[in-house]
Every structure is written in C-alpha cells, then in structure tokens.
C-alpha cells in the first residue's frame, strides 16, 4: 500500500455542511434544467451529468474517498470501468444487431 492512509482524519462539520448545501443546490439545478428545458435534446445527458456530480460529492466527502489511499480509489475505478464496459458492449450489440 502507499501509506497515504489518514486513519485519524475526521472531516469537519463545516466540510459536511458545505457538501450537503452543494448537493441541495445541484438538486435545484437539475430540476431547473429539466422543467425549463434548458438543454433541449441534451436533457438526458445533462441530468446524468448533474447526478454524477452529486454522486461524486457523496463519494468524496460523505464516503471519505477524498481522504483514502490510491488503492481503494483504483478498486472503485475498476468496478465502474467494468460496469461501463458491460453497458457499452450491450449497447453496441443492440444497435448493430
């Protein structure tokens, strides 16, 4: 392992509060984008991008990923990569069948 683990790191209340407020702001943003049809035909993509930003905030701060070592981050990246390949290849199959 790379010895970067910060076992004793306690995330401050302030950091959590900022993350929570940012999540609520992104929620407001995603509703605005969908209801006002701001992105027109890119609305699905826009919604998913905002959802991923929210997921990123939860992962980074609430789930402490920002403070974890590279090993765990790589494992998560590997899992997400596997899922992306699974979805990607299935789409290729469906489209070019």
């Amino acid at each position, binding site marked *: *392992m790379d010895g970067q*683990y910060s*076992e004793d790191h*306690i*995330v*401050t*209340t302030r950091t*959590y*509060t900022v*993350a*929570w407020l940012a*999540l*609520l702001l992104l*929620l407001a943003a*995603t*509703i605005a984008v*969908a209801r006002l049809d701001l992105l027109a035909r890119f*609305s*699905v993509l826009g*919604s*998913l991008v*905002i*959802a991923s930003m*929210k*997921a990123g905030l*939860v*992962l980074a*701060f*609430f*789930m402490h990923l920002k403070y974890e*070592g590279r090993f*765990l981050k790589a*494992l*998560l990246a590997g*899992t*997400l990569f*596997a*899922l992306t390949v*699974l*979805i990607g290849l*299935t*789409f290729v199959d*469906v489209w070019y069948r």
Partner: protein
Amino acid sequence: MSTETGHIDRQGKKMGMWFFLFTEILFFGGMFLLYSIFRSKYAQDFHRGAAGENLLLGTINTVILLTSSYTIALSVSAIRKGKKLLSSRLQAVTIVMGLAFLTIKYFEWDAKIALGLYPDSPILLKLGKGEILFFGLYYVMTGLHGLHVLAGCVVIAFMLSFTLVGTINREKYARLENTGLYWHFVDIVWIYLYPLFYLVT
C-alpha cells in the same frame, strides 16, 4: 478485532465494506443497464410513463435522503470526537428520515396502484410495450432500493443500540462507519433513480 498490541485494522474493516459495495454497484448496474437499453428502444413510452410521476414527492424524498446522508456522516464524526449523545441523536434522526422516505414511497405506489398501474394489471397490459417495461422497471428498481433503505434503517437501529451501550465508542466505530458507507451508497442509487424516473420526460 484488536490484536495483542491493541492495534485495530481500520483500513481492512473499511475495505471489506467497500468490496460489498462493489457487488452492490454491479447489482444495481444490471438494472440501470436494462433501463437504458429499453429507454433507447421505447423513448416515447418512457417519456409518457415518467410524465405521470409525482415530481414533488420525488423531490421531497431526494431532499430527505441527501439530508439523512449528512446526518449519518455527522454521527460518525461525533462518535470519533467522543460525543456519544450527539452521535446517538443523529443516528435516530437518520432512521426517522429513512422511515419518512419509505412512507412517502408508500403513498406514491398507492396512488399508482389506485390508477390500476401495477405489474400485470389489465389497464397496464393495454398500454404500449414500452410503458409496461417502464412501470415494471419502476416497481423493481424503486422497490429494491426501498428494501435497501429499510435494511439500512434496521442496521442503523442496531448501531444506535451499540452506541448507547457503549460498544461503539470513540476507539471502536468501524461498524458505524461501515453502516454510514452503506447508507451513502443507497443515497447514490437514489441520486440516479430520481432523474431517470421523475425528471427525464
């Protein structure tokens, strides 16, 4: 558990939880795959299905789950600072929010079922193929997510009792921390379900 030297392998305990969460990602991932394939095939039907969702209730539920992630995260910080009472209260608040989420979900399902929109219902079977798929996926995905919320509430209730008797304390908090990780994961699943079922119309 601690070894003779009193060392606690916090990293190992967390890693075990993360491995479980990876399997959960692929579990829900399969359903998201189904959703996206059928959505691309039956865009119009999915569009019509999602338009019938109650955006207000969905949004309230999103606020509830995001806030409950905040409170469970704060409860872990609190116990690590030795604030037992504060941590217990935050865990209790998290459970209440989880139950509130499920109650709202109950009313949403109830309203749909009252309209005759439930799997295999005569009204649903008369609709298009895509709409049958949309509502099928709606019930399976929000249902399995709801089960995860329920399981989370039960586990947090156990953690609350451990905190109160003191077996979870400022030195030994791995179980509470891992419960928090699970709860945040369930929150993330909802973060994706919300736009897919309520917003993208």
